[in-house]
């Protein structure tokens, strides 16, 4: 299986690559449109902010390339937020692959922003990406912005407010948390994404 990691400049690219290696997959880090188009699986990692994240994709002339991906595509953390229409962060136009606008976590008494740490997942509907991930499973989150809940939400999590933790729109999946750093739960999600049974 050909798995590519889009060279989006995010600082977690190394971690994602190692997580895939632990699952026996040697993912290729690339910004080459042809390599991306011919891959079996495409992962858009990302740590940082929406503005620079999209600027980087534009600079690499990858915006239309990513929009045209028909194979399973997984956005991780900022990579998931970039899949949406837009983000309040730097008032950024994003990829428009999933409807909705990403906004800042409200925070509040005892609710620290950024959210940093392990939080529980509440699956809303069945999906092959979350196969074997039980209600209450915990994953590692680090973020200040959240995607809204909607028809595409597969699982939610809560930090002062409920937000989309895992989404799917057609061939695009996204995880707000870091599967590469979420121990067995994260490995399961990545394994499902790589599986032939992903549907």
């Amino acid at each position, binding site marked *: 299986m050909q798995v590519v990691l889009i060279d989006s400049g995010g600082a977690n690219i190394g971690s994602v690559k190692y997580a895939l290696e632990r699952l026996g997959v040697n993912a290729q880090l690339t910004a080459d449109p042809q390599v991306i188009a011919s891959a079996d699986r495409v992962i858009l990692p990302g740590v940082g902010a929406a503005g620079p994240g999209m600027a980087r994709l534009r600079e690499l002339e990858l915006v239309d390339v990513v929009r045209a991906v028909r194979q399973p595509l997984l956005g991780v953390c900022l990579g998931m937020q970039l899949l949406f229409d837009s983000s309040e962060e730097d008032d950024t136009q994003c990829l428009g692959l999933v409807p909705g606008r990403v906004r800042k976590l409200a925070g509040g008494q005892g609710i*620290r922003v950024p959210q940093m740490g392990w939080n529980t997942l509440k699956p809303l509907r069945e999906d092959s990406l979350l196969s074997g991930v039980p209600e209450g499973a915990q994953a590692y989150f680090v973020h200040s912005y959240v995607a809204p809940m909607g028809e595409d939400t597969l699982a939610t999590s809560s930090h002062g407010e409920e937000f989309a933790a895992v989404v799917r729109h057609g061939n695009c999946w996204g995880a707000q948390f870091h599967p590469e*750093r979420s121990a067995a739960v994260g490995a399961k999600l990545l394994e499902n994404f790589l599986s032939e049974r992903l549907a």
Partner: protein
Amino acid sequence: MLSRRIIPCLDVRDGRVVKGVKFRDHVDMGDILELALRYRDEGADELVFYDITASPEGRRADRSWVERVARVIDIPFCVAGGIRDVEDARVLLYAGADKISVNTPALERPGLIGELAAAFGVQCIVVGIDSLRDEDGEWRVRQYTGDPSRTRALAKRMLDWVVEAQQLGAGEIVLNCMGSDGVRNGYDLVQLRAVRKLCDVPLIASGGAGTAGHFAQVFRDADVDGALAASVFHSGAIRIPELKRSLREQDIEVRDAG
């Protein structure tokens, strides 16, 4: 609901994990990877690696062991030690560190915090603060604490620095209470409570853990987001699975690493 984090801290010197008492007299505790894997298996929520001689020696933490850790570990980890600019941080983050922590270099040049936050986002920028109460009752920051012969007291009030660091872009604060470090009499609750009032980002307590009860106390009484400890974990005096069981029995939310 967000869990409270249990964070073993590994002080690294010359590629080995060491531990001192009150930041002095370091003894060898073992191999980095071996300890990292042990804590991962036991259910640690995160690891922190401090290259304790990096800053005093004017160099950055070594990327080679960071990469080795990143390959085998599937929980987040933070690296600290001699990170002086965006390039230093980039090398360590690209090697696989999830967060980087700055201490002495940020005191020398506070603008560093903002530069790092702009480059990588606030979520991976941790500011470590070494603090000690002076004779006049005021908490003040220390620098170069990795090397006792070079450790320096600054005029900067710790609480002022906590506020300033957040304004500059710190995504998390680790408060090392030097007066209670290594003596296992419990976290410095008075100091941590004072910081909590001024700290809107995640706050990690460090220094003084001796019993499971100390962890419960610091979560309940100082409302910290995570508790960091070294010697009690290295020595086996506290085992993480039992610690988490005890916290759960007291209705403190912790991750079940099953």
